[in-house]
């Protein structure tokens, strides 16, 4: 699937070029202010990690970039042009693909249909043209296998897969369709060590293929393995915005947890093994 | 019985007599545009069944208020190769095709209840019934004679052709007639709607209901609205007959549904058996006849047997 990335990547990407830029972006859900004054820059060939506590506004941020919710203040530019997405389709058409935290799958539909949903392969341009079903099933199966996921039947409703398997389908889909920007909202949350590793490799591969990646995670180790740029959100505002060179893993962990909790925790919970 | 007011054991089955079912060997399909549960049609059917019993005919009754579906029912009777078909012709244009296919298959068709003007054109042999607009007109003439200026005609089934033509008949005699739509499937809705109308327009002097159960609701509504409008109605049933007797309803116009059912079956039987043509090439009118205080005593007992 890393080869998938290289194959599908837009050929015009040049490392370091800004793909998506947010300036002073804010978002209110009715009375609830979920985000305010966020600046963010996603460059080609770079991985931007967004970290933060639960409820900090990470998902809200990526929903704005992926066109799911429009922002209520500030501005969002893609390739230098100001945009205000009316629907995720517009973002997708610009090559921005997203793995949502709740995965955005349709439980009753087959795995392969979910994989290609919204970007079906058709055999003609007229509305009732048949889909290239065999090909779609093959690709879906193949891309899932690349992640180490073997579903017993690519035709089974995605609702019957395990949580992690569903997560993998969503990731595989985004990787397959993301040509310029890849956004991942806690992609490794439901995954085992092996699958997490695969996902991290994908992220690295996407970066190497010149894509801009936004990676949301709660795991500073994971973030530090692949990130070029780190943004920490707290209650809807940026509290840290640093390049890889200017922070260490320890800094990151400290900032995120508000104290090096995990180390302390190990000590606290320490017991004979 | 340990409590009064219930059923009185009438002993013998008064519709007795007749031949063994089907002893004549004829099967007759009887198709109407009844909306299920209407007391009027119940009597048409009772008449038809009595005739079938008397003449040893096998009767197949079916009904659907939707014209297209009624045509379908006639078609299925043709498919089943019955010996004769009696049908109402309330929407003659819509039924023409089905009736013609019956005649084409050599099955005699008799019209009843509605379609006075068109039954010949459709190829039906005989006709038994009144005519809705004729009945409406005679009712209108009578209340006009009594000084009606602004009657209210209560339609209890939206868009029903037969009910609309009754009201149109009334209006042709009394131009001040106003229509009102009510939900006939719900007594309290009928009552309150009438009540509201009577409150809205105090000049209403006559209420014309198009079915006996609706007349009973109208009595309730009149009381609630303390209206002095007079109440007249189409069709009879037992409860309503009592209301005529105690003067709460002025009169009812009756087209003798029992006769329509009975004669339709009988005429087919005679046609099949004996080649008879009842009516001598013309329609046989079963109404309209008026039921009022002058003749109610005679008619009341029959309503209890569901034959008037």
């Amino acid at each position, binding site marked *: 699937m890393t080869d998938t990335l290289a194959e599908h990547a837009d050929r015009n990407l040049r490392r370091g070029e800004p793909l998506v830029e947010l300036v002073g972006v804010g978002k*209110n*859900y*009715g*009375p*609830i202010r979920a985000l305010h004054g966020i600046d963010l820059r996603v460059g080609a060939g770079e991985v931007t990690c967004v970290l933060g506590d639960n409820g900090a506004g990470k998902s809200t941020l990526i*929903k704005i970039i992926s066109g*799911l919710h429009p922002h209520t203040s500030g501005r969002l530019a893609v390739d230098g042009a100001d945009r205000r997405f009316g629907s995720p389709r517009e973002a997708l058409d610009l090559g921005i693909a997203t793995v*949502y935290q*709740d995965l*955005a799958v349709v439980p009753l539909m087959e795995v392969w249909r979910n994989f290609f949903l919204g970007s079906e392969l058709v055999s003609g341009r007229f509305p009732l043209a048949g889909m290239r079903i065999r090909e779609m099933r093959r690709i879906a199966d193949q891309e899932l296998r690349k992640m180490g996921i073997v579903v017993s039947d690519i035709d089974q409703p995605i609702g019957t897969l395990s949580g992690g398997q569903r997560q993998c389908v969503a990731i595989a889909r985004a990787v397959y369709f993301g040509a310029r920007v890849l956004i991942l909202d806690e992609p490794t949350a439901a995954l085992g060590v092996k699958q997490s590793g695969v996902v991290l490799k994908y992220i690295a591969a996407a970066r190497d293929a010149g894509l801009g990646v936004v990676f949301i995670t709660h795991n500073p180790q994971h973030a530090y393995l692949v990130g070029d740029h780190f943004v920490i959100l707290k*209650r809807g505002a940026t509290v840290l915005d640093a390049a890889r060179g200017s922070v260490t893993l320890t800094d990151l962990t400290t900032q995120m947890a508000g*104290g090096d*909790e995990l180390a302390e925790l190990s000590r*606290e919970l320490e017991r004979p093994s | *019985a*340990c*409590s*009064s*007011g*219930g*059923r009185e054991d009438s002993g013998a089955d008064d519709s007795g007599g007749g031949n063994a079912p089907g002893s004549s060997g004829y099967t007759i399909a009887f198709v109407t545009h009844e*909306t*299920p*549960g*209407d*007391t009027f049609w*119940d009597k048409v059917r009772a008449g038809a069944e009595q005739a079938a019993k008397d003449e040893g005919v096998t009767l197949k009754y079916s009904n659907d208020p939707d014209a297209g579906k009624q045509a379908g029912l006639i078609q299925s009777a043709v498919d089943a190769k019955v010996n004769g078909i009696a049908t109402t012709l309330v929407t003659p244009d819509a039924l023409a095709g089905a009736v013609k296919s019956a005649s084409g298959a050599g099955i005699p068709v008799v019209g009843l209840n509605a379609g006075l003007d068109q039954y010949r054109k459709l190829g039906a042999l005989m006709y038994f019934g009144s005519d809705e607009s004729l009945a409406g007109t005679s009712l209108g003439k009578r209340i006009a004679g009594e000084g009606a200026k602004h009657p209210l005609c209560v*339609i209890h089934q*939206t868009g029903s052709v037969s009910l609309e033509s009754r009201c149109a008949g009334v209006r042709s005699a009394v131009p001040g007639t106003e*229509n*009102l*739509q009510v*939900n006939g*499937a*719900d*007594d*309290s*809705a009928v009552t*309150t*709607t009438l*009540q*509201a*109308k009577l*409150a*809205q*327009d105090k000049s209403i002097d006559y209420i014309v209901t198009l079915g006996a*159960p609706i007349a*009973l*609701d109208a009595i*309730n509504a009149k009381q*609630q609205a303390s209206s002095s409008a007079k109440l007249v109605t189409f069709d009879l*049933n*037992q*409860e309503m007959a009592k209301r005529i007797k105690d003067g709460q309803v002025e009169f009812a116009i009756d087209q003798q549904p029992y006769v329509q059912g009975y004669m339709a079956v009988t005429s087919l039987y005679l046609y099949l058996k004996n080649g008879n043509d009842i009516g001598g090439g013309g329609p046989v009118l079963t109404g309209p006849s008026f039921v009022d205080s002058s003749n109610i005593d005679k008619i009341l007992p029959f309503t209890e*047997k*569901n034959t008037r």
Partner: protein
Amino acid sequence: MIPATGQVAAPGLARRRPGLRLRALLGRPEVGALAAAIVIFLFFLLVAPSFRSAASFLTVLYQSSTIGIVAVGVGLLMIGGEFDLSAGVVPVSAGLVNSMFCWYFGVNLWVGAVLSLVFCLLVGFLNGWLVMRTGIPSFLITLGTFFVLQGANLGVTKLVTGSVSSRDISAIDGFGSLQKVFASSFAAGSATVWITVLWWVLFVGLAAWTLQRTRIGNWIYAVGGSAESARAVGVPVVRTKIGLFMTVSFLGWFVGMHSLYRFNTLQAGNGVGNEFLYIIAAVVGGTLLTGGFGNALGAAIGAFIFGTTSLGIVYAGWDPNWFKAFLGVMLLLAVLVNTYVKRLSTAVSPREGGLT
């Protein structure tokens, strides 16, 4: 033990902000419906002079109550995620059972009323049990019951009385007392107040209490919102749903008793189509068709909107040929006002919320 670090949290954030209380009030599902009801009511006050009297208002209330009593039950059931299409004919069945049993055997009407109650509860139980047992959608199960009852009403009545309406039972013992309970009225000035209006208020109050303040109410929202989740945390899903079906048929029985003791006789073919009115009332009142959201008061207001509109058009004296068109426009208007008011108060509608 270990002092949980998490306890240190920005104080006051969970306190409700000043604006929130008003918003919370406005956000209640029935507020939009109430606003809609007021708009519609004022509208008819304006256009229909004869609408402006206590008597008219009470007529509207009466009409609303006959729909509203069952609509409240249907609303609860829909919040619980199920439909009951048999609700329209159950009242007629209830009345017929009572009326014909007592007429045929000549027993006191109270006996028949109790019998009829048992019968209705059984129908409700059967509906619920079949739905839960077979996993077939309630829409289909109760559609079956609806047809069966509709047919049986007609068939049995014909068999017992020889005609398609039940016989006059006003002379049978117990009529007077039953009429007092189910169908009496008293004068209030020039107007008549029907007892069903009071019963309606009572049932709505009870339903509202149950939904908001009791554990059963909690369960109703839960089984409608997500039956699997509810089951997982130990909610007795089956019992709750069966109970809801039985509530609907109980209320159906009640309205059936009213019709019977108000009109003495019943048409066996009646009631068809009312199941739909109940659903409309509930949905106009803000109940979610897919379950999990709604309110007893809302369903009552929905019934009131429907009653006001259908009688208001008559009071206004508009062309009866266009009746349904007016009704449609008014309903749409009510729903629009409802939605608009809800929008004002919350950003997240249940339709939008949930996912993502």
